[in-house]
């Protein structure tokens, strides 16, 4: 088993790196793999190629990788926390909260008269605040509510209610704001600069560190909450840490890239299937790498077909989810 895991980790890391290089090569201006590699290692290439590779596409590639990793780590945590194989990073309304924040901001933006660059920063900020607000309400409620299923239902209802409010706002908004909002909901990895990456990367890293810190309670939660508690796990602290981690991971990705569906649900399942393990010490790094691979693959396809990333990840992730459901075997208690 150990050997299988080592081989898989090596192969997946190699796949991740090669996909990153391919992702940089693909775009409106085609750049050969050879040129990409030379630019990355500081070899001889033309100034324009170097600039495209290092200033634009490398950031995009890294963002894709981080987004996939973050969503999958969060999805794994949610699946274990809620004992539900169909749970994902958005199950508690992260994307609904973010959408609400963005809708509010985009509708208000014309009134504030913001410039285009402020518009993108403001959109990300509004999305993050919206997502975090929803999760903090749920964290606050979860300290009072014992039954995790009630929390799940509250999260889903809350998110539907926000969705309805967002629809009212769309209905009332003017054409230009409506279009920017719809484009945001389709997801994009493209508008991120190095200075935004400097904000995104540490937030995601913090979320992943929190996820690492909770692997032991997550392993115990597989057997159900009663067993976890009688094994000495502080349940409310574990829940709070996990939800904060999801705020940092899913909230941040959604803020910068828009809602990106299905990667967070599908990647942990792929990791379980490949590694044949239920141990979060294996599954967490495995989900992170598989998520990065899926997202890079999605980004490459989306660039080749000139389609929004969200549609590609949905079409990639849904068959995996259907396979899991029809296989009908219990993954968590």
């Amino acid at each position, binding site marked *: 088993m150990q050997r299988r895991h080592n081989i898989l980790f090596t192969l997946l890391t190699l796949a991740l790196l090669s996909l990153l290089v391919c992702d940089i090569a693909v775009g409106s201006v085609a750049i050969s793999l050879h040129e990409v590699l030379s630019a990355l290692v500081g070899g001889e290439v033309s100034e324009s190629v170097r600039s495209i590779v290092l200033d634009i596409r490398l950031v995009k590639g890294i963002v894709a990788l981080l987004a996939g990793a973050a969503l999958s780590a969060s999805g794994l945590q949610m699946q274990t926390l809620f004992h539900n194989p169909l749970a994902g990073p958005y199950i508690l309304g992260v994307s609904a909260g973010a959408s609400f924040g963005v809708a509010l901001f985009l509708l208000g933006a014309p009134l504030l008269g913001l410039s285009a660059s402020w518009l993108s920063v403001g959109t990300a900020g509004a999305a993050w605040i919206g997502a975090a607000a929803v999760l903090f309400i749920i964290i606050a409620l979860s300290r009072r509510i014992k039954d995790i299923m009630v929390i799940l239902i509250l999260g889903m209802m809350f998110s539907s209610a926000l969705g309805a409010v967002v629809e009212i706002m769309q209905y009332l908004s003017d054409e230009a704001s409506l279009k920017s909002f719809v484009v945001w909901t389709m997801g994009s990895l493209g508008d991120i600069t190095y200075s935004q990456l400097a904000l995104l990367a540490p937030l995601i890293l913090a979320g992943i560190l929190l996820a690492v*810190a909770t*692997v*032991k309670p997550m*392993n*115990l939660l*597989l*057997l*159900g909450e*009663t*067993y976890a*508690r*009688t*094994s*000495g*796990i*502080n*349940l409310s602290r574990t829940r709070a840490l996990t939800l904060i981690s999801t705020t940092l991971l899913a909230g941040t990705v959604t803020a910068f890239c828009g809602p990106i569906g299905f990667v967070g649900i599908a990647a942990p399942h792929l990791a*379980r299937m490949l590694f*044949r*393990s*239920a*141990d979060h*010490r294996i599954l967490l790094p495995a989900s992170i790498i598989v998520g990065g691979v899926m997202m890079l693959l999605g980004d490459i396809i989306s660039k080749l077909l000139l389609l929004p990333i969200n549609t590609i990840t949905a079409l990639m992730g849904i068959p995996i989810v259907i396979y899991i459901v029809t296989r009908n*075997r*219990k*993954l*968590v*208690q």
Partner: protein
Amino acid sequence: MIELDNISLAYGSRTIIEGGSAHLLRGELCALIGRNGTGKSTLLRAIIGHLRTTAGTIRLDGRDVATLSDERKARLISFVSTERIRIDNLLCEDVVATGRAPYTNWIGQMQDADREIVGEALREVGMEAFAHRSIATLSDGECQRIMIARALAQQTPIILLDEPTAFLDIPTRFEMCRLLHRLAHEQQKCILFSTHDIDAALPACDSTLLIEKQGIRKVAIEQAKEVIASLFGI
């Protein structure tokens, strides 16, 4: 080891037990018997500290359960629930290993001593051959044994089991009760289990705890059969 001192319990607004007292000792196997809805599971939940008593005190090894942290309790009392564990890719050995959680570090790293304890626990319940099998492939009786091994690996002086014989066939029920008897006596543990299975339980037990009309009554095994018969009108 388990001391119920004039306790009252409620489930929502409904009073389950009012002013019940009993005392269970080390090396004692005790069956918790009562009709459906009388509050057997509620009492077990109160003893593991997941439900507050509305009055009175529950003491484990002399300490008030309400004042103990989950971490502290995990070294005093282990629990085997009725839930069936069916998880893909989860090996029996790893399930038993979760019993070591109170003793391992932040990431749950097993030491050689922990692995030895896990092996010993599997041997105690006669499941060593299943160590590398997935828990999802086991029968109910086998699964129950693994969960008991898990409780043994936790090395607590007290073990609580919620209807350990519920899904088992008749020979396995008797076997399960004999196993609990042996563990209580050989390892000097205080074991309390709820059951409806009087035929299998009584021959193995040292005492019974009866719940009736919101009261708790500890009955010595010699009188248990008569008292139960008159109580249930059978």
